[in-house]
């Protein structure tokens, strides 16, 4: 299982802040997970589509599409940051 977190606009659009997902064998990295979530359709497809400028983190460090995923990881998806 991995934990997936959603923040800010994405959290509101998806209607949830976190979920546990059993990592399918075909999903090996962040890009694979994103595609897996997009395949749910509806809001997931709309909000996580490749054209959306989302950022990702794995175990609380900035990640990229090819960042590998392992069981027990904490993955987060969020919009570009706007603090300060």
């Amino acid at each position, binding site marked *: 299982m991995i934990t997936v977190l959603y*923040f*800010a606009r994405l959290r509101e659009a998806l209607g949830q802040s976190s979920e546990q997902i059993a990592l399918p064998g075909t999903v090996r990295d962040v890009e694979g997970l994103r595609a897996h979530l997009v395949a749910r359709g509806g809001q997931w497809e709309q909000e996580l589509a490749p054209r959306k400028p989302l950022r990702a983190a794995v175990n609380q460090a900035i990640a990229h599409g090819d960042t590998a995923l392992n069981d027990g990881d904490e993955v987060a998806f969020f919009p570009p940051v706007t603090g300060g």
Partner: protein
Amino acid sequence: MTVRIQTADFDVSAEIAGLRRGNPKIGAVASFVGVVRDVNDGGAVAEMTLEHYPGMTEKAIEEIVAQARARWKVLDARVIHRVGTLRPTDQIVLVAVASSHRGDAFAACEFIMDYLKTRAPFWKKEETGGAARWVEARESDELAAERWRLKG
């Protein structure tokens, strides 16, 4: 180095005193305070809510401060960022850097702030007269951070 994320306000004078306390090697302190304005992108802002990613946000700022320490002679630094609901004139963020000389303090303070704006996970949602909108990331902030790649 001190990094704090908090809902409470902060006292700049007390924070700088805490940063300097007992260190006679400090000859310069540069600080930046970010404040909530009542207007953004042409719209009136009644209040805003700041969201963060507990755990990662602190780590991201610590990493930014570590990068600053690798580039400039920084004796100590303190970063405080508020979250939750804030209103115009409220303080949002404090970056204070202590060095032996002002050049290092000024540069490191600006670098930390520019990187915080584009790399630390915070998100602002503005309330503008009954409507709420998530603030869009600005390209100018990204350019401000990018220019540090070009100069020392």
